[in-house]
Each structure stands twice: as structure tokens, then as C-alpha cells.
């Protein structure tokens, strides 16, 4: 199969190490800036919600993490696909990082949602469509992490583990839309209307702008974390390679 130029470059760890070294400060600063703006705005200046009071402000953490959680799964599956097709070692490392960060994001979304639920619904947990799907997504992430963790013998078996995780991620990708759709359909059959709070957003514009900024900020933060984790993985897997020693000593 002909390898596209970009993919070809990704096959070279020194290139990735150099480029990510240059990108990371930019992404890091940008993420900080966006998130600070969004949160200061959202927490300090956006108006209070008529029904929920101040507790709604957790939306600025909850929604961005929830959005990233799902997008992160596709990023992970994509790295898995590239790894399976072109056998690029770097993608293996990136898949590991994406699984970890994605699981963390999903957990944050669930956790912030639960914290939000207490003042709003008077209960920490509710079995509604979106929440249930999010929980299943969390399990899907844990499955991928579990496989990676279980194949932890020699380097060969670690590679086999990443391939297994890639296959699982791909099967999961086919399944996620099916899971989301069916859960949504099922709970919409019986759910009492009072729980439809997470339904259509009727958010005021002045609340929406900081939310959008927070979402973009979170995406950038995700990209930053992904590069950072992958670099760490790269350092530990190539620790005895000459180019890495050169790269580190140049600093």
C-alpha cells in the first residue's frame, strides 16, 4: 500500500519528537489562555441561571469534557487503524496515550455530571440516555486500557497488546453509534419528562459564548495532553536510542 507523506513522517520518531517539542508550548499556552478566559468568564461574569442558580456553572467543565470524551474515542480508533495498516510504532504510543486521556475525560464528565445532578435533580445519578451512553463509553475505554495492561510481558507482547487494543477500538467505533442510538431510543420510550433537563439546550447567549470557548480550549488541551503523553511514552520506549540522547542533550 502506498504510504501518504504525512503518515510516512509519523513513522520517524525523531521527527515527531522535534515537531511535538515545538508544538507543545504553543498548544499549552493556547489551552491555558482559552480555558482561563472561559472559566473566568463563565464562573465570574456570566449571568446566574433562572432555574438552577449558580450550580449550572459546572457546565463549563461538564460539557467540554463530555464532548472530548466521545471525540477522543474516535481519535484513539483512528490511531489504531493507522497502526494496524502501516505498523507505525509511534501510533502505538499515541493509542496508549489517547486511551488514558480519553478515559480520564470521560470520568471527569461523569463526575462533574454527578456533582451537578445533586443540586439539580436531588440525586447523584440518573439512568437517562445520555448518561447511560457516557457510562458505556467509559467501559469501552476501560476495556481498551485493560487489554493494553494485560499484554504487558516483553516488548513483543506489548506490541501484540496494542494491536489487540486497536482491533477492539475499531469494533467499538462501529458499535458506538449503535449503542448511542439504541440507548437513546429506549430511554425516550419510558422516561418521565422531568428528567429531560439534559435535553434541548435553552441556554442564554451570554452563557453560551464562554461555553464555546471552553469547548475549543478543551480540544486544544486534549491535543496538548496527547502530544505530551506520547512524548513520555516515546522517551521510555526509545530510552536507549542515540537520537533521543542527542535530542535531550541538545537542550
Amino acid at each position, binding site marked *: 500500500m502506498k504510504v501518504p507523506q504525512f503518515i510516512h513522517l509519523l513513522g520517524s520518531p525523531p521527527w515527531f519528537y522535534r515537531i511535538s517539542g515545538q508544538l507543545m508550548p504553543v498548544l499549552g499556552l493556547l489551552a491555558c489562555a482559552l480555558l482561563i478566559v472561559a472559566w473566568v468568564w463563565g464562573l465570574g461574569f456570566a449571568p446566574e441561571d433562572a432555574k438552577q442558580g449558580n450550580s449550572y456553572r459546572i457546565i463549563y467543565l461538564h460539557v467540554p469534557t463530555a464532548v472530548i470524551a466521545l471525540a477522543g474515542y474516535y481519535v484513539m480508533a483512528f490511531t489504531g487503524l493507522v497502526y494496524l495498516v502501516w505498523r507505525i510504532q509511534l501510533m502505538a504510543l499515541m493509542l496508549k496515550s489517547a486511551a488514558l486521556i480519553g478515559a480520564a475525560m470521560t470520568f471527569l464528565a461523569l463526575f462533574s455530571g454527578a456533582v451537578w445532578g445533586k443540586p439539580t435533580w436531588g440525586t447523584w445519578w440518573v439512568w437517562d440516555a445520555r448518561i447511560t451512553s457516557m457510562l458505556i463509553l467509559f467501559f469501552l475505554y476501560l476495556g481498551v486500557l485493560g487489554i493494553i495492561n494485560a499484554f504487558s510481558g*516483553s*516488548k*513483543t507482547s506489548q*506490541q501484540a497488546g496494542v494491536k489487540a487494543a486497536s482491533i477492539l477500538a475499531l469494533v467499538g467505533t462501529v458499535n458506538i453509534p449503535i449503542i448511542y442510538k439504541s440507548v437513546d431510543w429506549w430511554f425516550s420510550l419510558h422516561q418521565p419528562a422531568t428528567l429531560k433537563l439534559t435535553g434541548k439546550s435553552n441556554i442564554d447567549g451570554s452563557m453560551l459564548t464562554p461555553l464555546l470557548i471552553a469547548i475549543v480550549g478543551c480540544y486544544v488541551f486534549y491535543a496538548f495532553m496527547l502530544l505530551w503523553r506520547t512524548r513520555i511514552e516515546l522517551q521510555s520506549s526509545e530510552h536507549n536510542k542515540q537520537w533521543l540522547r542527542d535530542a535531550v542533550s541538545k537542550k
Partner: protein
Amino acid sequence: MSITRLQVDRLSAGYERPLFRDVSFSLEAQQVAHVMGGNGSGKTTLLNCLLGLFPATSGDIYWNGFELRANAFDAALYLGEQVNAQSYALGLKNALSVRENLQLYLSTTANALQAASQTVRQQRIDQVLEQLSLLAVANKRCEQLSSGQQRRVSLSKLLLNPCAVWVLDEPFAAVDKQGVVLLEGLISQHVEKGGSVLFTSHQDVSLGMSVRTVQL
């Protein structure tokens, strides 16, 4: 003019560190090669590499002139080491009798007897069992056999499936003296008929023919 069955070029493989580096050798028709080396020198790893069951770090492997791709060859018959945590076991089903195991082997692998009638196969199996003195236990389940008997059942595959190359990891382990002589005879005959054999063994083997050694 001899046929090159297996050609290994500058092969390296290992786990954390390389076990062997740049191993090159070839195996032609009517040749026997003995892979030698102490415990842990990488003999089993080498054989697994040759059959595509373990990834090599670098180097090339050609079977009958074609590059190795796992899962697509009928060139060799591989009998693994008798259990060790990471190696390949004998390929016997514990719950089936010796005879059933061999029938299963004949019917699920590509071999010259695949199209033969049930009776022809049955006769062939009985012949082979006789040759390996397993007739007395032919109807016992494999889990009820002694370790040497289990090894003999696995060796009987060599006679059932006339494959050109035999790859044998410690085939002499666990078999008794009479069995060693028998197996030596089988190997000699196979080679005389134009076959090739690659094996590992810690014991001295007397085959009555020249044996190449591959030292690890």
C-alpha cells in the same frame, strides 16, 4: 542439483535484548541441520521465527524461495517443545483418544490423505500407531498417557503427513531409548527420500549421515 528448502539471511531476534544476531544458513533437500546452544540460547525462539510465530527484528526467511508470511504455508511440519510456559505444546486434545486425535489431525490439515476414504485413513493411522508402539493405548485419552507416550503421539504426525521439511524442537526429550533409535531411523529415512529436517536437541544423535550444525 539440490533444492533449497529454507534460506535464512542475517536473521536477528530477541526480547528485550537480541538473543541472536545475523544468523544465516540454508537447508536443502536431503539435509539435516541440528540447532545447538545451551539453555536459553534462543533455539526455540529461532524455530518460532522461522515459522512466523514470533516476529524477527531483522533479516529474511525464504521457504522454497518465497518470502515467509505467517499463516500461508504448507512447507513444513512443526512439532514444538513439550510444554514450557511460552512455547508451543504438542497439539494434542487431552479429551480425545489417541486415535481420535490423529483422525482429527488428518481431517483438519491439508495433506495427501485428505481425499482418501475413511478406511484408508484408518489403516494408515493403525500402521503409524503400530510403528510407534502406541497400539496398546490407542483408545486412551491423551491426558491419560505418560509424557513419553504423549510425545510419541505427536511424533506420529510426522508419518501421517508427508511434509518435505520437519522442524522439531527437542523431539528426543521424554522418549525412551528404543524411541530414540526409532526416531533416528525415521529422520534418516525421511532424508533419504528427499526430505529435510531441522531439529534441536541436547542429546547426541547418531543419524549415520552428515548433519549441519547451526550454533547459537
